[in-house]
Structures are given as structure tokens and as C-alpha cells.
């Protein structure tokens, strides 16, 4: 039983900007299928009357108050940038 097609894997790879060789696509399609089939087993559990669980951490709200804290010093933010100019990050031109 196939839960995901090779085309879908290729599409998701493209969206994630990943490039795979043909044999890699076959391999990942098969592996992802196994994972999804395993996940299907969860569907056999009876969850009638159980509230959907949105997070593994069982706790209340985690907020911060609206108070400013210092940002990184100028230059620090840019320290790891592959390319920068003045106070800006620089990237290849993007067309809007």
C-alpha cells in the first residue's frame, strides 16, 4: 500500500530546496512510506471523547511581559553572515 508517491516526495524535496538523485528518490519514497504506514497504526487507537493534544508539554500559558531587552550590538548580528554590506545582510537579488 502506497501512502506517498514518488512525485510527492520530489515535490516536497523541491519545496525544501533539496536535490536528490533518482535512486535517492526511490529510497526516500520507500522509507517515508514505511513511516507513514507505521503512523497509520495510531489511527486504530480509539480516541473518541479524547481532546486533541496540541503539545507534549502539559502546562499553562508561557508569556513574557511587554518589556524591551537589549538587541545584539551592531556588527554582532552580521558576524556570521556569508555576505554583508554596511549594516545590511547582502543576498543575491530577489525579484518581487
Amino acid at each position: 500500500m502506497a501512502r506517498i508517491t514518488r512525485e510527492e516526495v520530489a515535490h516536497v524535496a523541491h519545496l525544501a530546496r533539496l536535490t536528490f538523485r533518482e535512486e535517492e528518490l526511490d529510497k526516500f519514497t520507500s522509507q517515508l512510506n514505511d513511516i507513514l504506514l507505521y503512523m497509520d497504526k495510531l489511527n486504530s487507537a480509539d480516541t473518541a471523547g479524547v481532546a486533541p493534544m496540541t503539545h507534549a508539554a502539559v502546562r499553562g500559558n508561557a508569556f513574557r511581559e511587554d518589556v524591551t531587552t537589549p538587541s545584539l550590538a551592531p556588527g554582532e548580528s552580521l558576524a556570521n553572515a556569508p555576505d554583508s554590506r554596511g549594516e545590511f545582510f547582502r543576498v543575491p537579488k530577489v525579484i518581487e
Partner: protein
Amino acid sequence: MEFEPVIGLEVHAQLLTESKIFCGCSTRFGAPPNAHACPVCLGLPGILPVLNRKVVEYAIKMALATHCRINRENGFARKNYFYPDLPKGYQITQYAHPLAEEGFVEVETEEGTRRIGIIRIHMEEDAGKLIHDERFPSSYIDLNRAGVPLMEIVSAPDIRSAGEAAAYLRRLHEILVYLEICDGNMEEGSFRCDANVSLRPRGREEFGIRTELKNMNSFRNVQRALDYEIERQRRVLEEGGEVVQETRLWDDAQGVTMPMRGKEEAHDYRYFPDPDLVAVAVSEAWVEEVRRTMPELPLEKRRRFRREYGISAYDAGVLTADRALADYYEEVVRGCDRPKLAANWVMGDLLRLLNEDRRDIRDCPIPAAFLAEMIHLLEEGAISGKMAKEICEEMYRTGKAPRTIIADRGLVQITDESVLLPVIEKVIADHPNQLAQYRGGREKLFGFFVGQVMKATQGKANPRLINELLVKLLTG
């Protein structure tokens, strides 16, 4: 065939918090590039976002103002796409579980009051800003805006014309500003709008193919862009063509909408719940606490002003356009108990003086109590309308009380008959020819005598009293 436009609007309002939505960086506009950035803004490995409580509080305010149902449990998701202004590769936003749903706002149009549905209100982070180099194949990134809190308000496809769209936007805008949760500055992008537009033959239930319009940075441009796009789609359909589903950008200079290039796969965002953030629980007690801080909203205020003060719809509209102006007006009314006169003075002389100086009502040099007192003096006839205008200008210049100005300048009106009578008698005695003509039937000369009395008293005589005495003496 007659077509009917179907319009839905998405508004992004920047929330007026001090710090960003998931970190403590400042939200202040106009800082040097990347001065307001930290590891959270930069999307560095290992960071954890923590939600700013005020963002939720402000969004609850808007939800209450627009009659939405507030979801007791809501949460954040990741919207995945690659763009250089988005360092993490995803935007944190609300998707399956937004803060609020199913509300409405009332919009007053020429055809009467219409209810425009709100599908949802949700919270999200803004992206950074990209600046494109004119000469080199480079773009520059400023992440000061990355993580600034936004509230997205999605309308139902209930809007039927460009004019109605503009009216709806003005409503949302004034509510946000009244609530003091957004500064509403469209040029700086604090209030942005995208529109979905389609046409369908009138009477048909199902929608046509829509286009999405972006890049409209003023109410006027929203209206122009929609008018253009409705007309464009109408022509396509009338020629038997099909509207292409696409995103189009409004070009202000040319007054047209143009298809946007690129980003074709933009709609495959692979949303999933953000595991870095716990669900947001909004208790009944919290909602009630926020409800208690809600001010009277503009539409309600407008209706109350008309009802309580008996002023026109237009006047009520002007006076409630700004919450501080409405407060000022009400204080004047409390001081003089003459709502219509108060409306005339606030909207007339006072707003003119403020507008000339581009001054906000919050910095008005005339305390409301002084304006009220001046109106009171005018009403009891102690000063004339002309004097009132002078006093108003002087109060504006000096901030002095009306009684002080009157005393300083000897402006008190002559309302005493025993003072005015000899003046009028002299005027009549000095103009025997005019008197004879008047008595011979040239009634127009009455004005001449009024003018002479005014001249003799330097405009200080009470006009009503002049009229009364003149009629008596002239008829002889």
C-alpha cells in the same frame, strides 16, 4: 450581462507594543538597519520564542470590538517558505486555531448600514525588509521588522463595491486607533491591506475566479485599485475570456494592476503546529478583564452624539473621527450646555486654527473649559459673534481665559440700554437726510444705521439691542 463584484479584504495591523512578539527587541520604527535584532529575530539555532502577553491582549480587544467568538484555546503554526526576509525559513502565525472567528463590523454606506463579516483574527510575526540594489544584482536585508507583532483580520467575501471596501477599511482603521492598539500609519506600513476580487453574473450564488491585489498603501489607492480591477475583469469576461487566478500588484503611478512575477508555488506552505510554543489559553476571566478596559467605539459614539446632542450625522462623524477630539468636544458641551454651538466652534474656528498649524487636538492650547466659557458669554450676549472669534484666536495664541482677554482688551459688549440709547440718538441726529428717506419708505437704510451705530461703538454694541432700539427710534 450585469456582473456583481465580490470582494474580501485581508488587513494586517501592526500592534503597538514596545517589544516584538516573540523576543524583547524594540519595535520602534526608524532605527538603523539591523539594530533591533537578536538571535530569535535572526533564527539562530537553539532559539526559543516566548509570546508577548500584550499581543494577545490587544488581539482580544479587537476580537471584542468586532463581535468575534474568542477561541479559548488557540495556537501557533509554522508557515514554511523560503525568502531572504524570513531567516528561519518559516513564519510563526496562527492557522488551524486562530485567536478569534466569526465576527462582523457595521459599515455605513449610502445605501444604509451594512454588516461585513469577519472570518478570523489571528496573531503572527512580520518579516524583515528587503531593499533592492538598482545597479548591482544584490538585495539588502534589514531585520528590524522581523518579529514585529501583526494582527491579521480577514473579512468574509461580503463586500460588493470599491466604495464599500474603503468604508470597511476606514471602520477597521478607526476601531484600531480608538482602541490604541495600532497607530494606523499606512505609509509606514502599520496598516496594510490585500484584496481578493472576483466577478459573478448578478443573481448567481457561486463565486467567479478571483485575483489577489497587493501594494495599495492608502484608502484612496485601495478604492482605485479595486475599481480598476473590477473593470479589467468585466472586460475579460464580456469578451468571453477567463480571469486568471493570480496575484497582481497595484501600480500607483500608472493607475493599473499588473501580474506579480515569481512565487508561483507560494501557496504550498506545509503548515504544522509550532512545537516551540505552547497553546494559548484565554480564560473567561481574562476576556472580562480586557472587556472592562474597552472604550466606547466610534460608531457607538457617533450614534450617541446624534441622539444626546442632536447634532447632524456629518458633525457627529467629524467630532468622533478622533477619540481625543470627541473627548474635547464633550468637555466643552459639559461646560456650556450648548451642544450645537459647541460643535460649530470646535469644528469651525478651533479645527481651522489647529489645522493651520498641523497641530493635534491633544496639544490644543485652549482648555475645553475656556471654549465653553466663551460660548456661554456669547450665548448670554456679553460678547458678540465677532468678538467671540477674536477671543478664540487670542485664546489659541496665548492660552488665556476668555474673561482675562475681555478685561485686557475692553471687549465687553454694550448691553446696557442707557449707554446705547444716547449713541443711537446721536447717529440719527447726525444723518437727517437718511432718516427722512427711511421714513419715506427706503427701508434698506436700516442697515446703514446699524452700521453707523456699530462704527460709533467700535463693534461693541449688542446687535439685538441695536435692532430693538433703532426700530423704535427710527419709526419715531
